């Protein structure tokens, strides 16, 4: 692992004066490899290692640490700080209903995450309404209805012959009439380069002004995470990210890439297929996971 590799490069003497330029250079070569193997974006890795180099060179090596551990400590802190941030919970509107829109690539976990989020909100005393706004994928509406039934949470649907924009508008009216204080719009998976479908998301945004737009991203996403997050963010000015399938063993470097490039916070971590599998995002845990 990274700690062992760095021990070999930087030696085992503790509290050995200051970190030299050479120490840091050697260490960062290993850190760079670890981050790339963890799927962190190539350019983000270069920027990140440059920051660490600035912080590390000339730093006093603490008496209790080896130079290797000192560098890892700096890297871990920088990573956690980069991915952290105070806006990592779901902010509710001052006047209900809060409208949340979930968007992202095909298969990322939007439908499941919508249901999980509804479950979480209901446990916190809210009255969520799930909205089936995916009119394209076969049995997408049925999928959300089955999940809603399992949770005993209402699912609003107008079938698959009505436009998602009209479904969203009608859902918000329905929420007002039925005192649902959170509306969760599940949208169809789409490519960030599909102009028509990206325009559809903007049209939904225009029509109902969601208070929170959450980009749902698969934790195993590779180098392309940056392109996807950038496009969705430029198109919609997203409020945050849900990172899914963290119960696998993907290192999840996409988390760092996306935060570094968009500045938007990761709000939730999805860690199972079950409907209680949604937790707040812990940047320190993610930092250790990425470093492997």
């Amino acid at each position, binding site marked *: 692992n990274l700690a062992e590799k760095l021990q070999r490069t930087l030696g085992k003497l503790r509290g050995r004066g200051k970190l030299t330029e050479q120490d840091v250079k050697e260490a960062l070569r290993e850190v760079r*490899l670890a981050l*790339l*193997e*963890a*799927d962190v*974006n*190539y350019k983000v890795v270069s920027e990140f290692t440059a920051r660490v180099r600035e912080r590390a060179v000339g730093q006093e090596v603490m008496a209790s640490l080896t130079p290797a551990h000192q560098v890892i400590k700096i890297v871990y802190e920088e990573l956690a700080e980069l991915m952290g941030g105070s806006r990592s919970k779901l902010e509710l509107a001052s006047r209900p209903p809060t409208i949340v829109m979930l968007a992202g*690539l*095909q*298969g*990322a*976990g939007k439908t499941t995450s919508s249901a999980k989020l509804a479950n979480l909100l209901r446990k916190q005393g809210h009255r969520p309404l799930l909205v089936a706004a995916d009119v*394209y*994928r*076969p*049995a*997408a509406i*049925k*999928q959300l*209805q*089955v*999940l809603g039934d*399992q949770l005993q949470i209402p699912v609003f649907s107008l079938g698959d012959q009505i436009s998602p924009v009209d479904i969203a508008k009608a859902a918000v009216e329905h929420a007002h009439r039925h005192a649902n204080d959170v509306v969760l719009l599940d949208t169809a998976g789409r*490519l*960030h*380069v599909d102009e028509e479908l990206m325009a559809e998301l903007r049209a939904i945004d225009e029509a109902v002004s969601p208070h929170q737009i959450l980009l749902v991203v*698969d934790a*195993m*996403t*590779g*180098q*392309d*995470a940056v*392109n*996807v997050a950038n496009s969705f963010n430029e198109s919609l000015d997203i409020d945050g990210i849900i990172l899914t*399938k963290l*119960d*696998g*063993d*993907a*290192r999840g*470097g*996409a988390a760092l890439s996306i935060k570094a490039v968009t500045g938007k916070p990761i709000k939730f971590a999805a860690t199972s*297929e079950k409907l209680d599998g949604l937790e707040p995002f812990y940047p320190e845990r993610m930092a250790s996971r990425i470093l492997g």
Partner: protein
Amino acid sequence: LSSHKAIDEELFERLEELLIQADVGVDTTLRLVDDVKDEVRTKGITDSSLVRPILQTKIHEILTTHSSVFELPKTSPAVILVVGVNGAGKTTTIGKLAHRFKSEGHKVILGAGDTFRAAAIEQLEIWAERVGVDIVKHQPGADPAAVAYDAIQAGRARQCDVVIIDTAGRLQTKTNLMRELEKIGRVVEREVGEEGAEVLLVVDATTGQNALSQAKLFSEAVDVSGLVLAKLDGTAKGGIIIAIAAELELPVKFIGIGEAYEDLRDFDADEFAAALFD
């Protein structure tokens, strides 16, 4: 790359960057670039415009170690088992495969082997209806191995020559789910023999290095014979299949380039290698 005039360290760094950004991964990238450097040195090449074709050729070699032509087993029926992690594109790929084989004159039947996920059976039923093929299904929560068995029996009874079996998405690290998959694989093998089944692992083109672990662990559970690289119509390059080919010798048989049942193509190693540079 084309603007780079000299064959120097910077050129090779740019190649590394390109490959890593294509999700080829560090190990495979370094190995490829070292091979290119060796060839440039031993052949005394000085023209930098020759470097890219050399790299493309090496990638092509790795990708064609095993045939990427999909061979339908000669047994009657032939069985195709489709596996992979959650959301990769399995069910949609089965719709595409069903359409492909039906339009080639085969009689196809589907097995709704995802008995777990919400509306998974309904999703495959819609594909069966759209393509015009029969489907075998049990109730949600049923034993997927039993569905696989029934689909093969129904296929025999109805003179189908292709049976395509869907399975639930599963992360490769979930040992109980991988054991369930092994059981499905054993049932299929018992019914049509090793030579009667093709096992396709569907990999999402946006996946990074984890796809290598997926290929390894799925291959330990079932006899994966080929990959389907889905969602190649996005901007991800899917370079991880080069690492998978290099380390596991697993060929890509098909690529998915969209959500409609026509959006399936045979894998073309030349096109793929060239597209890495777009």
